[in-house]
């Protein structure tokens, strides 16, 4: 595939969702991985690299959810954790700390969905990085977002807070790293079934002329 110009959001989401499925995530989670990556992509974040790092080695586990602390013995999956955050947001049962979170930047789009649901914003603290996430936007310094993007695994503290600002969201497609795209393509290709002689013979156009 030739990717020498910008992906549309739809295309990027499809690529990421397919890669997530290829990496072994369940279908519903793979859909959310695609949507989450698309949310980040149109806000200028290189979600392709983050997603590849989040899913490309052995699948990471779901969080073990205590009342106020979610985490795991090994680094936990940000997609599964993020999806659970949105699910539990509806119950007003969110943790204040998520430990051992793989690719913590990937939690942002899920916090945005939770913020939308709860009508609040989330203040996020990770090491000394501080950002706020509203339903539509990430508020904070570009350097902090960049630093968060660079973290492979970290503890994240989240606090629901009153909305302080509602910046307009103007789509700004991220510049994506070609090697990450290639890695996503390769993961996505794991969802394909190789052809066999019998599948070719029973295929959609098999045995009939399509040039008449």
């Amino acid at each position: 595939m030739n990717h020498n110009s910008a992906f549309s959001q739809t295309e990027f989401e499809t690529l990421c969702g397919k890669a997530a499925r290829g990496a072994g995530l369940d279908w519903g989670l793979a859909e959310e991985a695609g949507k989450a990556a698309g949310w980040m992509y149109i806000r200028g974040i290189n979600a392709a690299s983050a997603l590849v790092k989040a899913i490309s080695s052995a699948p990471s586990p779901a969080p073990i959810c205590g009342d106020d602390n979610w985490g795991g013995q090994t680094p936990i999956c940000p997609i599964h954790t993020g999806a659970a955050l949105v699910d539990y947001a509806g119950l007003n049962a969110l943790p204040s700390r998520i430990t051992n979170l793989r690719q913590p930047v990937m939690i942002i789009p899920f916090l945005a969905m939770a913020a939308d649901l709860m009508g609040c914003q989330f203040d996020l603290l990770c090491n000394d990085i501080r950002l706020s996430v509203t339903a539509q936007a990430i508020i904070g310094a570009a350097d902090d977002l960049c630093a968060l993007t660079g973290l492979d695994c970290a503890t994240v503290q989240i606090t629901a807070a009153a909305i302080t600002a509602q910046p307009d969201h103007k789509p700004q497609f991220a510049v994506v790293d070609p090697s990450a795209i290639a890695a996503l393509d390769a993961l996505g290709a794991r969802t394909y079934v190789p052809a066999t002689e019998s599948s070719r013979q029973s295929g959609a156009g098999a045995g009939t002329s399509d040039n008449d």
Partner: protein
Amino acid sequence: MTDAVHRSDTPLGPLHRSPDQVMRLARMGSAHPMRLSFLRVLLRRVAQEGWEFTRTHWQMDARGVGRAVYRAKGPQRSYSLVAFAHDLPDEARSDRVIATAWDATFTLFDGEPTPTDLDRLAANVPLQEAGRISAKELSLSRANRSVRLFNHVVDRLSKGQQPDMDQIDAVGYLMRTTAVYGSGKFGAADRALIADRAELSAPFQAEMLSVWLTRWFIMDLVNHLAAHKGGAQAAQLDPGIARRLGVGNSTGLGMAPFLVRHPTLINNWIFAREEALARVRALPGVTADQGVTLKNTLAAAQENAAHWQSDHPIQIAKLADLRQDLAAIETHLTQWPAGQMPWNALWLWGQDHLSIEGQEALLSIMLEPHGDLIDGLAECMNADEAKAFRINGAMPIADLRHILQTHYDWALKIDFNDPGQMARFWYVSEEKLEPRLGERFLEDGAELEQPLAIAHLARKLYDALAAWDDTAPVAALLLAHPQHRLMVRRAQAAPKYPFAEVRDNLIAHDMLPIDLMRCKLAFFGATRFDPRSDKWVRISLFSGMSYPFEITAGGAI
């Protein structure tokens, strides 16, 4: 149980058909185009708004190689079809998605392209999937000549003669598109960027505009080639013959999963049609104009059925049903209208006396006289799919169980221990990069099954719920069992979107993918549905309709 489930969420009234009746494959596979079909929506808009259509660029050599631009100018914006015509050797012509060359390639440009845009598009559009387009483009498509008809028409015209009408009717189009991509494909503009434009808010309007302008290009191309071949003696294609010709389309299994993957969108299409039928059935009387339009529409349907050809045994049987049923309707109308709510009486008579094929044809015919009553429903046929995406983690398991029992009872009745009900699996072929159907017990690859067997997913979810307490939240279920996430999302949307699910088993041994295709294509407005197997079809678009240059402000369509 919470109010969310106890409350009557259904938007359906007594004159609406039920999803159990409507969403069966046999009925979906008998769908006919109608007033709310997307190409009709487009044609109504451009006529009502007085759009202007101009061929702004034509640079074509004697072999028909070159480029052309057709501009559609609306009240707010312009769109341009950019066409590239190629000289394709016969042996390279294939409708399959794996083809790498075509007779002509197209894109719908958002606005009017500059020479720089045209050069960029010339370097990419002819490559189709292997090229890239940008957010300035709304579609990407290609078309191949009908070998049977194209050369015949050019030859005849070049000799100053009109083509043979039997051959025109046997094929019905000069070129057929083999894919029309929109919505962000290959770098094109995302749907979200254009969905707020009135002229593009109904589904597939950019794609329909592209195909309609392509029809004009094709007519210009045959006239151009005939003029070069025949010189002064060449004739132009007779407008009456041109009017009969549509744009062909060749479609394989790739289209079938779309209906399953876009449940809220499909609900909104079907709901709009069913709401239209319910409104018509509720009318207290028949005006003289309505009666005349109804009879004219029936006559047109009979004419269409007479010309509608297929070699496929299933379609041959359906066409026989259709012709017989249209004749029965004609006879019945001699004693109609009578009594109160005559439209409802007509509909109920049809349900008792017509085949499914005939009933669905009657639906389309009955909608035709009622533009004022139903055309506005076209505005409700798009969908904000993001709205139904978020799962309600707070929903108690009891409510989810209740949804499955009430909205997926059809699925829970299927015996998946019967190998015939598990016979197939949907997958994406590595070789074709297209959805395909495999035989689960005969072929490899079932572990890579795509999640299209919704009935089976509903069954598995329902079984999993047996181990859960009524009061536990869905969030806890999904934390422990993420494999049910996709099905939970669909199930939670079901009460609000009654027509979201195809209520049949999509992996059963006797399932016909062409039934899904016909439903979607009828919503596009396709005619002459002609299955070439149970997995791919040919159809025609815009056959019998106006060309862009024939549109006049306020004119009838």
